Every structure is written in C-alpha cells, then in structure tokens.
C-alpha cells in the first residue's frame, strides 16, 4: 500500500478544499447577490474548466506554469523553485480545476437564503460582508458541506490534471489516484483493488462525518 501517496492526496484535498472555501465564499456571494446582468457570464466562466478534458486542461496549465510563461517565471523568481512538478503547482491546478465544484453549490445555497433576513441585517447596520458572514454562511451549511464534499472527493480522485502538472514524483506529486492508475496499467489488479478500497473507505468516513455534522439540527420532511 502506497501510504505516502495516500497522505499526499489527503493533504492536497484538504488544502484545495480549504483554499476553495476561502476563495469560493466571496466569489459565490458576489455572484449570488450582484444585480449586474453580466455576472451570468462570470458564473459560466467559473464552470468552464470542467468542459476541457483534465489532461488537456493540465497541459495548458503546464504551459502556463512553465518557465516560459510570465506566471511561472514570476513564481520561480519569487520562491526559487518552479511551480510545475511541485506540490504547490499541483495545489494551484487542483484549485483551478475544482473551482466550479465549490462555487456552484455555494452560490445556489446563498441565493436561497431568505431575502428578508438580508434586509433585516442591513437595517441592523451590517455591511454586505458582515451579512454574508453572519447570516448567509450559517444558513448555507448544506451548501458549504456540498461544496466541501465535492471539492474534497474530486481532488482525491483527480488524475489527468495532476498527472500533467505533477510529473508523478513520489512524495511530492504522486497522488494515490496516480498510484492506483499505475497499478492498473501494470496489471497489478490486486494492488489497485486494495488501494482503491482503502481510499473508498477513508473517503466514506470523511463524507459520512461531514454530512452527519451538517445534518445536525437540519431540516426534515414534515410527516405528511
């Protein structure tokens, strides 16, 4: 069992989820509450990374992160290490690729918050940001859970982008998804099966706990 790869994947998924919640909340709030017409275009653009095959997206990211691109050079000069084939590069790629999975559910949830509560908050002197933090977010717990779950699970399973940007370096960019893939490619079905099972069980535990936590005190169907 490639425990190193599993640990790396979990680290990547947690970091991606954390970053996407931090980045996703303001973005989703802006999309949900802006009255401007063209926000629908931004909404659509957020979903666009999904449309490209992951390896192709990964290829473009690879080009964007490489030393020949301004971004890659700027990062290299800043930190002394390249972005491609490093954990940071992987993280960046995962964040870009999973963006829609975080932003979409957040936005849906935010938009569903009762307008009157937003008005009540404004009357009581809170700014939009304060209202999002104190009213919108707490009332969007199911949406936050969905965003976190989709991001986490998707990053664990992500393969194409990671492969392209990461270069399969053990301990640095060799995630469990790649490890399993390699096993399958090498016809080591038993090993692949074992690792998959561990991954599935672990994820099941994470997901069940997230949902159970989120459900506490949540709504339930009226007995009809």
């Amino acid at each position: 069992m490639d425990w190193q790869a599993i640990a790396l994947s979990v680290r990547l998924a947690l970091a991606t989820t954390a970053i996407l919640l931090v980045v996703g909340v303001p973005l989703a709030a802006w999309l949900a509450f802006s009255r401007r017409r063209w926000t629908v275009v931004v909404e659509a653009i957020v979903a666009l990374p999904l449309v490209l095959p992951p390896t192709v997206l990964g290829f473009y990211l690879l080009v964007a992160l490489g030393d020949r691109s301004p971004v890659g050079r700027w990062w290299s000069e800043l930190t002394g290490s390249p972005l491609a084939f490093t954990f940071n590069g992987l993280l960046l790629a995962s964040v870009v690729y999973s963006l829609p999975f975080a932003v979409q559910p957040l936005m849906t949830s935010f938009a569903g918050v009762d307008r009157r509560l937003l008005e009540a908050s404004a009357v009581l002197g809170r700014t939009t940001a304060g209202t999002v933090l104190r009213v919108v977010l707490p009332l969007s717990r199911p949406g936050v859970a969905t965003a976190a779950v989709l991001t986490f699970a998707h990053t664990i399973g992500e393969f194409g982008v990671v492969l392209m940007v990461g270069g399969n370096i053990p301990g640095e960019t060799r995630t469990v998804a790649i490890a399993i893939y390699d096993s399958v490619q090498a016809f080591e079905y038993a090993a692949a099966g074992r690792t998959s099972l561990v991954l599935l069980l672990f994820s099941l535990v994470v997901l069940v706990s997230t949902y159970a936590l989120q459900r506490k005190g949540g709504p339930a169907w009226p007995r009809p």
Partner: protein
Amino acid sequence: GSEAAGSEGEVRVAVASNLKFAMADIVAEFEDAHPGTTVAASYGSSGAFVQQISNGAPFDVFLSADTGYPEDLVQDGLADTGDVFGYAAGRLVVWAAADSPADPSGGLPALADDAVGTVAIANPEHAPYGTAAQAALESAGVADDIEDKLVLGENIAQTAEFAQSGNADAAVVALSLALSPSMSASGEHSEVPPGSYPRLDQSGVVLPDSANPGGARDLAGFLRSEDGQAILEEHGFAPPEPGEEG
C-alpha cells in the same frame, strides 16, 4: 495474401499512441492499395487496449507498443499465437528544447550535468519506453545521478510534452516523436546507442473475434510489406526482429 472479397469494409485498429505519426501515412497508402477498405484507428495506451480487448472491445487489429501485451492476450486465450506479428522496433533519443540548458548532443551522460534540472522519462513501471530509458540510463552509468531529476510521464507523448513545454530540461523519448514536425521544429535530439537498452520490439495481433478478418490480415501484411516498412522507417522506427513472424 487473402481473397479480395474478404478485404471490403472497415478495419478497426487499436493503435499504441507512439505510432500515431506513422499511422496517418500508413492508413493513406493502405487505403489506396485496397479500395473499398477503410481504416478506423483508435489511439491509446497499449495497456488500456489490452484491458479493453479482454472485455470485448470490437477491434480487428491491435498494434501494441511492445511485444508483451500481445503475448498476454495469447496467454489469456484471447488471441492465437499465429496471429501475432512483429512490425517495427522503437528507437530511443534524448530530446531537449532549443532554449534548454541541456545539450542533447552529449547523449545520456550529459544529463548528469548540474545545469540540467529536470529530466522526463516515461513511467518505467508500465511504459515500455520508460523501462528502456531506465535501462539506458543505467548502461550510461548516470541512473543514480539523475534519479532526483526525474519526472515521470504516463506515456511517451506526455513525457515529451514535459520537455516541450519547458518544464523539463530534457526528455528521453521515442525517435518517432522527435521526428514529428512540432518537436523537430522546437528542439534537438540525439539517438541513444541501440545496444544500451533492450530492444523495443513492437508487435501487433489480428484479433480472433474480428468482424473483418480479411481486412485485418491485409493491414497486418501491409505493415510488414516493403511499402509499410519504408513508411515506418521514415518515422523513426527500426525494422522488426527477423524471424518474429509466426
């Protein structure tokens, strides 16, 4: 040689992706020579094709990137030994982009140079070109020196992209790729001495459940024909091991 009547229709070929550049020319000439027959080529990794064929993929011919996969199929009773045919052997090169600090003319040993940061090879665990590259590095005595520089591509094309995009300073890839218009325009290559790694023989197999066995055999025949071999050589392949034919 088979009856012309059997060669009508479509031939579905599963083609290892490293053969892609040669395949377009092969299909064109083959279709010229066999009017009424069309070739539908699916590209992918050889390993995946084996898995798909094991599960009933409707291919007539499988052109693998090595000899092992077709033999696996034979062993699993999914193909007959007699239908396996060698058609070419791959050649290994060191490739670097024009603006790379690496100098491909120095061959593998030059990759140990400190100026070279990252070297891409295909994953030796399951890609034949990766295994060959690993062996060649060992023969050259630099395997340990560059172990920390290695990044692994999932297949040989991806390996090339690492170097081509400038993220890896050099890559050990197939000559067939290095000769492609895009790579030859953007970088230099030098061939790794053929003796320093095990032969990269590539064989194909005509599948027993083929819906068009005639067309399939015609295509296999064409690949081994003089015309076919000329095209393969032009695209960086060596001739198959003599006597491989069953």
